[in-house]
């Protein structure tokens, strides 16, 4: 990675890092992780203080959820808006626009609504935006850029940092402990294995909002596949290759045509998932509200305590220091880590065949993520529930028992095919 150590500021908690990022951008994002009460207090403060114009210190920023900083609905509009501030001749403007789209591999997503972009594609777009802004910005602030961006695209972030640093502009990266550490995590415990069989037959997804008309809309086709996997399993592939879309299909959180069959240890079942943006999935509900989303809250709390116990044991074994356990009483709210655990406990209480964890390391330190995943695998396997992890990190390579690599074939400007291949000794029948 190209960055000097003094550029990076590390934090032990997601909430602390978010606070630091908010301070950099004049507290313009209300704290939704701090409960609805604090959210409204922040909104009132913003309203009272009026908008402090960041134009004076010309700041470029990439938020931990990059969508936060994108004020328009499509990549085309986001790029055009920043270009409009720097160019006033149409021929130069159009040329620069095309160059940026190609450079950041966004040509095929040009007019796609942000919502249909993958997390990594949003990061790429935010990087492209900051790159154009380097002409007139004086500072660059980035919050946790290492989670959603695939290794193949990390050079884009490097280039961006380099551009600002070479021009003598201030670069600040706010990250969580160990977030940019690529070393593989050793698997100390011998994992139990579960057989997981997933079959996709003629699955087609429409990439559009409910209110849009039918013309000119995109679709994603999942190529027929018969995957024989061993849990825990890792889904990997470049940004925008459809990993999250496939997990939405497996958990039936999205409407699709076709058939999907999930068999875990000989029993046909269903999938549940934890979204990439966990905070959006909580729908701002508190810890106790989340535990009550299941019809058996007692069972949820029992599983929660089981995972918590495993987590604490693992983290103490690795860090020998309980300061790293990742819980802190902030604003009287539970931390992101506790929310993640209770959400997994809710899902386990409904006895699914598989739980998919989309980018589980987002918002956690490396030590916390590793301990959490190991604890979840242990508890889930004891209940014969398989685990699928979606991640760009190499951390999990030795923890998982099988992996699926994703490929994308573009059909036209709106549609594409998702191909999945199992790695190692597991064959794909097509």
């Amino acid at each position, binding site marked *: 990675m190209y960055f000097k150590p003094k550029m990076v500021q590390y934090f032990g908690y997601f909430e602390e890092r978010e606070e630091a990022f908010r301070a950099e951008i004049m507290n313009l994002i209300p704290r939704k992780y701090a409960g609805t009460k604090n959210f409204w207090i922040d909104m009132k403060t913003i309203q009272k203080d009026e908008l402090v114009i960041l134009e004076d210190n010309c700041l470029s920023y990439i938020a931990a959820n990059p969508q936060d900083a994108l004020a328009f609905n499509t990549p085309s509009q986001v790029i055009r808006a920043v270009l409009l501030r720097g160019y006033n*001749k149409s021929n130069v403007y159009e040329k620069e626009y095309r160059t940026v789209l190609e450079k950041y591999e966004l040509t095929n997503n040009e007019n796609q609504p942000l919502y249909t972009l993958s997390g990594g594609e949003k990061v790429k777009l935010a990087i492209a935006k900051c790159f154009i802004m380097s002409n007139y910005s004086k500072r660059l602030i980035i919050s946790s850029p290492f989670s959603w961006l695939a290794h193949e695209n990390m050079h884009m972030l490097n280039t961006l940092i380099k551009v600002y640093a070479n021009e003598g502009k201030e670069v600040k990266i706010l990250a969580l402990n160990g977030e940019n550490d690529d070393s593989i995590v050793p698997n100390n415990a011998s994992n139990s294995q579960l057989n997981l069989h997933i079959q996709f037959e003629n699955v087609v997804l429409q990439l559009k909002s409910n209110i849009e*008309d039918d013309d000119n809309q995109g679709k994603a086709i999942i190529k027929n596949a018969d995957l024989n996997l061993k849990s825990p399993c890792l889904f990997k592939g470049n940004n925008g290759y459809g990993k999250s879309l496939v997990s939405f299909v497996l958990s039936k959180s999205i409407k699709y045509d076709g058939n999907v069959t999930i068999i875990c240890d000989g029993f046909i079942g269903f999938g549940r998932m934890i979204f990439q943006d966990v905070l959006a*999935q909580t*729908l701002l509900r508190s810890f106790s509200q989340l535990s009550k989303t299941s019809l058996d809250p007692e069972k949820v709390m029992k599983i929660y305590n089981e995972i918590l116990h495993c987590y604490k044991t693992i983290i103490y074994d690795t860090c020998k220091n309980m300061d790293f356990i990742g819980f802190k009483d902030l604003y009287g709210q539970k931390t992101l880590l506790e929310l993640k655990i209770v959400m997994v406990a809710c899902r386990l209480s409904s006895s699914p065949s598989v739980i998919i964890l989309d980018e589980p390391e987002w918002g956690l330190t490396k030590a916390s993520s590793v301990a959490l995943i190991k604890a979840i695998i242990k508890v889930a396997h004891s209940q014969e529930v398989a685990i699928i992890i979606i991640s760009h990190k190499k951390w999990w390579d030795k923890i998982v028992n099988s992996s699926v690599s994703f490929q994308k074939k573009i059909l036209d400007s709106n549609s594409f095919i998702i191909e999945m291949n199992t790695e190692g000794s597991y064959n794909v029948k097509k």
Partner: protein
Amino acid sequence: MLKNNRMIIWILKSFLFAIVFMPSFTLYFNHNFNEEIIKGLTYWKLLYCSIAILTVYILTGSRVLILCLTAVSLLSISVIFFGSIISCLINFSSISNNYIFSYSPRYISLLINMYTVVPLAIAFMSILPFKEYENYLLRRFKGISLFEKILLIITRVFNHIIYYVAPNILRVIKEEKRNNDIYYSANLVEEATVKNYQSIRLKFRKLLIVFFDLSLCSICFSIEYVPLWVLEISNLPSKKKFKEIKNER
């Protein structure tokens, strides 16, 4: 601004919507066909509601129609159902047959009006070419006026609700729906029968909580990024005056 064929389709659709909207604004026909089927519901109102729904279906398709009907049903729960309960409670001391006869037609009439006007309004919003207008503004070198900037912010919030807030909530609901499915399949038949009564009560309570949670989170999610967007949009170059453009030339 728009490609020619899309422009023609948009103008045509807007024209048709304007025609169907006309009776709602003028209320002309309301007075001429006021024979009642039941108290509060006239033949004309029923016919007009059917025409409105049919128009929405023809001009925007089944997908938008389902969305409109869902939205109006949710709205009518709060406005009609809770509204009637609240006004009934307020007038509790004076409740009598007279009260029921005088208020019920009002709510029936309100319900049918909502099923007519709300789908038409949502469907009309769905055909407006917001995206094309945004694209047009962001290619214009003479700058963007204050009014256009306000329009951009409103459009952004609208798009955010349509493309992010609503689909995200739907995904979460669909994902969590499985909690309930499994609860019932895991229980024995006898247990299920015993719990049937409880489950109705529980379901109603849960429905209220979900309704409240969803409303709160929809509002929070819809406005959370507005300050940042306002900042970004306000930084766009302002519209130059005619004299400035002339001087540049």
